[in-house]
């Protein structure tokens, strides 16, 4: 079987599974996805169309309140805050998605090796290392790394955040694998002579997709949160991000000088992204555990 | 002869779902007489446990009681307020739940879980209750050290007997035991059943014994009610029913009891129907070897065959 053929068959299989049908019924998931996509598209298109270069400083009058021409005014460097926000949102989302992809891949791989493929001894090794790293608070480590490297790009930042975000995700996936492998259909697949890799890709992963997706959503929001945290401490990347906007507005005392158009809109954007990811997460969660919705009644 | 302590009248317990209501208990009439052990039998999924939950008013959403009456000593339990019901619970109606493995609070000592019910019903003070708890444990054959243990330190059978001891603590007039012997080994099953029978003999309590295991009913029940697809299809004296089962389904249930002399076990062919859409007519018709045309369209009601033997089947007129 060619790789492409396998991929196509795989997609069809996933599409036909119950999960896909349940998801298309979940209002939470759909509205979250819609919200997130609109933020992505607006920031992507907006930042390309914007006539103001956010890297250039001082060619607009500073600290101006919103006008028609500058819907969110200008900051203390004389930059258009609206353009700054569009670029910042796009960059922060980029950090979030890169971290989401990297850590999802790593945690799924580690989770399956520990929980299914690797056997008892490998599981013991992987899960104790994971547990050791799990309790070490990630943000201080990232602070240390970013402070030492100093000049970083958003891609390096994403790598740094990824490097210290895998333990929790890995444990979540591993425990899911452990509970799934005891299920009836896995035994059935084994009895019918499927090899381990096929069981993983054809039986386990399709059933775990909602968990993996929910995990991905929370990783993205965690990464954006971490990016803002590092940004506020002055450890952000060279490019404009949401964290960097907060940093500059704090350093320039925007709060006390009542430059609300500088610090408040990024909070709104952040809450929008965060809420959409939360909706996606809980929509997926309900598909994964139908009992959840029934019990909580919300 | 009949001196009913509990009368269930047209009880309906439904479960809400997006596909419509699951009519799990769909119009059950049942009478329990004073001092008798009434066996309630049927395949799993026929609504036995839900019927018990309905009688005890323990149905949780999305389940709800859709109609009927549960008359205990002249009072309709379904019309009481929570607080009025609370005072009747355990003091007059005790419950031995299915899956007692998890029915004890894991973080409280056995003793304290036995005492709290006596205190909350205002019957005994703490010291007396503690003494009584030890007596009760002895009565069900558990060592006194059990009192100071936590549930996870006990075996399944021990936990089950703790709950039976608990059920005896307030001398209830009615005990409802839901599958008390599942998940226990054969020896322990017998012990638990005999302990329940002792409840009736020593305290004069009435017992509803729910079990899918016909052998258990043969062992201790006085009367037996057979449930199928949310309804009672046959009720009668345990000897009458085992000797001359009137309903084809009852006959199949009895035939499916494993016996030493039998070489082949006979199961009941076909699948149990779904409570979302019960079959029309007699709910058993699709699996019934004796089904006639009438069975498909007309639902039979309970008819008396004499001596308290009731059956819902068109074969009997």
């Amino acid at each position: 079987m060619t790789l492409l053929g396998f991929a196509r068959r795989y997609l069809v299989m996933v599409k036909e599974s119950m999960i896909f049908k349940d998801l298309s019924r979940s209002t939470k998931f759909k509205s979250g996805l819609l919200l997130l996509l609109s933020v992505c598209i607006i920031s992507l298109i907006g930042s390309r169309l914007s006539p103001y270069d956010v890297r250039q400083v001082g060619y607009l009058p500073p600290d101006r309140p919103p006008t028609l021409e500058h819907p969110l005014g200008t900051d203390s460097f004389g930059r258009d805050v609206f353009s700054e926000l569009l670029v910042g949102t796009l960059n922060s989302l980029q950090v979030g998605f890169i971290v989401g992809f990297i850590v999802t891949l790593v945690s799924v791989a580690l989770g399956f090796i520990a929980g299914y493929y690797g056997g008892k001894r490998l599981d013991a090794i992987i899960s104790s290392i994971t547990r050791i790293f799990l309790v070490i608070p990630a943000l201080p480590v990232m602070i240390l790394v970013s402070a030492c490297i100093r000049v970083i790009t958003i891609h390096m930042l994403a790598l740094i955040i990824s490097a210290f975000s895998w333990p929790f995700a890995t444990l979540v996936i591993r425990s899911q694998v452990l509970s799934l492998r005891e299920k009836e259909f896995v035994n059935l697949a084994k009895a019918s002579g499927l090899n381990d890799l096929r069981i993983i890709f054809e039986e386990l992963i399709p059933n775990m997709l909602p968990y993996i997706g929910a995990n991905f959503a929370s990783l993205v929001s965690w990464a954006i949160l971490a990016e803002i945290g590092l940004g506020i401490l002055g450890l952000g990347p060279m490019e404009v991000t949401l964290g960097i906007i907060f940093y500059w507005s704090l350093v320039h005392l925007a709060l006390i000088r009542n430059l609300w158009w500088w610090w408040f809109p990024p909070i709104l954007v952040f809450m929008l992204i965060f809420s959409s990811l939360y909706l996606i997460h809980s929509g997926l969660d309900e598909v994964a555990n139908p009992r959840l919705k029934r019990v909580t009644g919300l | 002869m009949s001196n009913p302590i509990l009368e269930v009248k047209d009880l309906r317990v439904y479960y809400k779902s997006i596909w419509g209501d699951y009519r799990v208990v769909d119009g059950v009439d049942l009478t329990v007489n004073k001092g008798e052990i009434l066996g309630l039998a049927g395949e799993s999924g026929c609504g036995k446990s839900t019927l018990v939950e309905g009688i005890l008013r323990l149905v949780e959403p999305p389940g709800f009681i859709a109609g009927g009456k549960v008359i205990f000593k002249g009072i309709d339990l379904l019309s009481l307020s929570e607080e009025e019901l609370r005072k009747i619970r355990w003091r007059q109606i005790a419950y031995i739940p299915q899956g007692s493995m998890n029915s004890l609070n894991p973080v409280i000592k056995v003793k304290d879980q036995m005492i709290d019910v006596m205190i909350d019903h205002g019957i005994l003070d703490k010291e007396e209750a503690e003494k009584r708890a030890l007596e009760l444990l002895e009565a069900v054959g558990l060592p006194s050290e059990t009192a100071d243990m936590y549930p996870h330190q006990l075996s399944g059978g021990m936990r089950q007997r703790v709950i039976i001891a608990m059920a005896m603590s307030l001398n209830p007039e009615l005990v409802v035991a839901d599958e008390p012997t599942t998940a226990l080994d054969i020896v322990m099953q017998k012990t638990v059943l005999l302990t329940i029978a002792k409840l009736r003999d020593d305290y004069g309590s009435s017992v509803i014994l729910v079990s899918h295991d016909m052998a258990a009913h043969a062992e201790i029940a006085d009367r037996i009610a057979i449930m199928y697809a949310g309804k009672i299809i046959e009720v009668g004296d345990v000897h009458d029913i085992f000797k001359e089962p009137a309903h084809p389904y009852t006959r199949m249930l009895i035939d499916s009891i494993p016996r030493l002399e039998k070489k082949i076990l006979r199961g009941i062919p076909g699948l149990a129907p779904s409570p979302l859409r019960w079959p029309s007519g007699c709910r058993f018709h699709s699996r019934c070897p004796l089904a006639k045309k009438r069975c498909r369209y007309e639902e039979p009601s309970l008819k008396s065959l004499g001596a308290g033997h009731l059956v819902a089947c068109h074969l009997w007129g």
Partner: protein
Amino acid sequence: MGLKRYFAEKICMYLASMFTAITLNFVIIRLIPGNPAEVLKELLRQQAISVGVVEFVEEYIREFGLDKDIATQFIYYLVQLLHGNLGVSMTRFPVTVQELIARHLPWSIGLLGVSCIISFALGTLLGAFLGWSRNSRIAQGLYYLALYLSLTPYYLLALILVYLFVFLIPLFPFSGGYSISVSGGLNYILDILWHSTLPALSVVLSSAGGWALSMRAFMVNVLGEDFLRLAKAKGLKPARIFRLYALRNAILPQTTGLALSIGNIVAGSLLVEVIFAYPGMGWLLFQAISCLDYTMIQGIFLITVTAVLTSIFIIELLYPLIDPRIRYS
């Protein structure tokens, strides 16, 4: 027997995590290009400190074995740590890192300790209520409030609080931990409380929301358990069912959650301190970062991580007290 094994396991995990953190601290700092001693000399030169620099750097190299190979350096580093020596601040030479930390740490412990306890207690109780009466209208409204509070990170909530209660309604001071003009006695304490209110409030509001959500979920789970149904059938008083059956069991996973999220709470609070210029570890860290005081950053990292790991360790040691299944198994 089970208890002994539990403790042994937890002690091993604690030591392993501590060792990993120390190793990270040692390794990461070597990501800075160049020889640490050269970096130090360069930094001091930039700040035009000349008196005693040569002696100081020599002393530093000797103490931390910087002229030896990397493995030996690590051993020197561990020995210095065991003596409580975190090195000298690169920018506030000759003040040592441990002196500076000792000065700022009490502020953080005070602010964080109090707000953590308050938020955990408040959130857990609120969550217990939300789960217990999950079908009531009020509980559902409060659920969404808690959800939004918990989705807002501390430091963004802090920004909003500053705007509301410093700028719009000037009730509280903008920044700092105390007023310079006030000293001694009750006034001083009141002044500190006044300065700490907003930072504490941002931590409390946001994390109490999170605690309420998780407690609600655990509560709902417990309410579906068999033993709760039996408790109801036993006709126990609702207050007893709530306290000894529902709450008592839901608090177990909640406590595990506390151990797991202490790290995040501490990290988030560091940022709150930056926003309020509150003189704790976060503010010290912010200053150290802005002038690239590496020994300082390293020291703060180590103290923060030690504090987090030790708190988790203590919670885990106390856990058998509330869960009998660990005590006797």
